């Protein structure tokens, strides 16, 4: 299939689904489920989209619980938080209006204070998702898409109580409603609103009791009470030229309860946080079934979160499955 025939099959520009981590690498580190993009459209039955993404988030500052920006680590007047992670993401159409997705990141997190550099690497949250399109219900406008997304985030690889912990270690469940609108052949827009239940289920994480005097910063198998969050996202894509798609995006995560307790170098998973991310990206498709993407996002506002700048680079492809189902 060449690009011309591909476009003829999809006259309304549809955004490519992005790997979940692409939307907010450091946010996943902080315990938040990453907010996937293009969540209003489902895949055609038997169609598979796969993406490999690399993310680099860096911060020298954090937002305190009262919103004031301050050094990420006391006395460190340089970047002190680094997240360098790889994400593998796949999405497949199961039925005409139902898609499933799976994501598995490998997280590498590095923080430092004035005396030590702490690094941890581990498999991150396994994310399993289902997307049910509501278009068949009939009330969605032409060129529009509406879908319900359900996602479970499973901390299968985490060792939570190391410093830094590459995740919060508990199961998250997220439900969202996403609406997308295609603008002829030149662009699309999408908004979504959801709610994330941060459960007290820690059974899947590989948390271990600390070894006193040996594990720096590890004092016990702590199971903090992470608060539920409201998640919102918006995205706009414009295709000025055939193989090039320009994107602008914003997202917000707001803990229902206000952040009251700050976080420190050794506690990169605050129980309550609020933040806004804004960014821009470009997707280039030099040949059919190959996408190259780059994004940058900043954190212009936050409460109890990392004030990071995030870069993401992705390589994606898509194909149809043949043979017997």
């Amino acid at each position: 299939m060449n690009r011309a025939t591909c476009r003829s099959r999809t006259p309304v520009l549809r955004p490519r689904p992005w790997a979940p981590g692409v939307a907010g690498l450091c946010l996943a580190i902080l315990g938040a489920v990453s907010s996937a993009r293009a969540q209003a459209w489902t895949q055609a039955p038997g169609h598979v989209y796969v993406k490999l993404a690399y993310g680099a988030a860096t911060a020298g500052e954090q937002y305190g619980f009262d919103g004031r920006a301050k050094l990420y680590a006391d006395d460190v007047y340089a970047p002190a938080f680094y997240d360098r992670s790889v994400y593998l993401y796949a999405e497949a159409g199961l039925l005409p209006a139902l898609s499933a997705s799976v994501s598995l990141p490998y997280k590498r997190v590095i923080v430092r204070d004035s005396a030590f550099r702490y690094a941890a690497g581990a498999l991150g949250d396994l994310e399993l998702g289902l997307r049910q399109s509501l278009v068949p219900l009939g009330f969605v406008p032409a060129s529009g898409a509406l879908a319900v997304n359900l996602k479970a985030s499973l901390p299968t690889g985490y060792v939570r109580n190391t410093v830094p912990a590459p995740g919060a270690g508990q199961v998250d469940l997220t439900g969202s409603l996403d609406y997308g609108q295609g603008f002829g052949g030149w662009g699309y827009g999408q908004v979504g609103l959801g709610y994330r239940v941060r459960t007290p289920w820690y059974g899947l994480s590989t948390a271990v009791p600390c070894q006193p005097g040996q594990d720096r910063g590890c004092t016990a198998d702590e199971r903090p009470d992470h608060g539920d969050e409201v998640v919102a996202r918006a995205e706009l894509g414009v295709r000025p030229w055939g193989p090039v798609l320009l994107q602008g995006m914003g997202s917000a995560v707001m803990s229902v309860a206000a952040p009251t307790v700050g976080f420190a170098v050794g506690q990169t998973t605050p129980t309550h946080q609020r933040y806004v991310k804004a960014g821009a990206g470009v997707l280039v498709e030099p040949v059919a079934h190959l996408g190259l993407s780059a994004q940058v996002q900043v954190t212009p506002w936050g409460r109890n979160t990392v004030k990071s700048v995030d870069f993401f680079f992705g390589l994606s492809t898509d194909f149809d499955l043949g043979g017997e189902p």
Partner: protein
Amino acid sequence: MTVDRREFLRRGAIGFLGLALTRCGYHEVQPLVAGITLPFLTPVGDYYVKHGAEGSIGGWRMPDLRPEGWSLTVDGLVAREVTLTYADLEALPTVEIVKTMQCVVDSNSAQGLVGTARWRGVPISQVLALAGIDRARARRLHLFGADGFTNNLPLTRIYDLDPSEGVVEPLVVTHMNGAPLTREHGAPVRLIVHDGFGFSAVKWLTRITAVADERPFGTYQDAGFTDEHRSPVFSRITAPTDNLTVPAGRVEITGFAASGVEGIEAVEVSIDDGPWLPAALADRAAVLARHPELASTLQFSERDRFVWPFRAVWALWTFAWDASPGRHRVRVRAIDRTGTTQPDRDLEISDGVNAIASIRVEVKS
């Protein structure tokens, strides 16, 4: 592009299971410095700053008080409520002590939240005398900082002290290391509790209320921390740092130890779970020679009353180790003059107790 469904599912499942089973995790801690050089007195600019209310009171702001606008109210179970100005406080006699302050948060988790300084202030009993504390009914003082931070102080910690035990009553402090307090350290007036943790030393002190209530009270207590203000015995290794690689041969291990309950009797080091061997404690005369300004402090000036090493003041120590190639475990423990030492384990972060400190050292030939 079309891919065989069965083959895709088979390879995908194998790949995913491989990733999941690999669990290729790692955890590293690398020192950025070879060791921490500790002078006996910590310069004000290097002294740790931790605001107890910052993490727990919404909208917290660091107070910016000037001496001319500051006042301290003493009320509650008193004969007469009084409000002191800074000039009133300056008119009262002062004393200066040397004290090591540490954060109650387990130092294994909060490295560096410790320091030693000279503190000059008015003994709190003189301030309370102006108001006339109702000793028959009052049991505790509730202490209030201008930033909203609160704490309490049992009156027994003021009026029932035994002078022979080397402890000084709490001070209403205006000066640190000979200079007026800086804003970060509680200017213009803070409390210093000689044998207490950092959270006992309420900054930007503006109100003292005498109460009959004997229950725990304060910002940290509300957060689950201990209401026991005296810091128990603890010790740390400052050099080499954890996971450092050093050449074989003589390695000087250094650190400090302190106790708010009594002075330090001994510090002992164990290599690879071997016998506990004594470390050498810093000599009083050598410390005084390096910091002659310490001569004005109560502990150094009243030699008969205060036994070296002083209570609530760190004892710096060294241990000469003949290091052989390999990976070694170095542990340190301190014993105070009550015979108390550190526990092998302590999983509670909020009790102020610190387990025996341990580091790993790689020795290369």
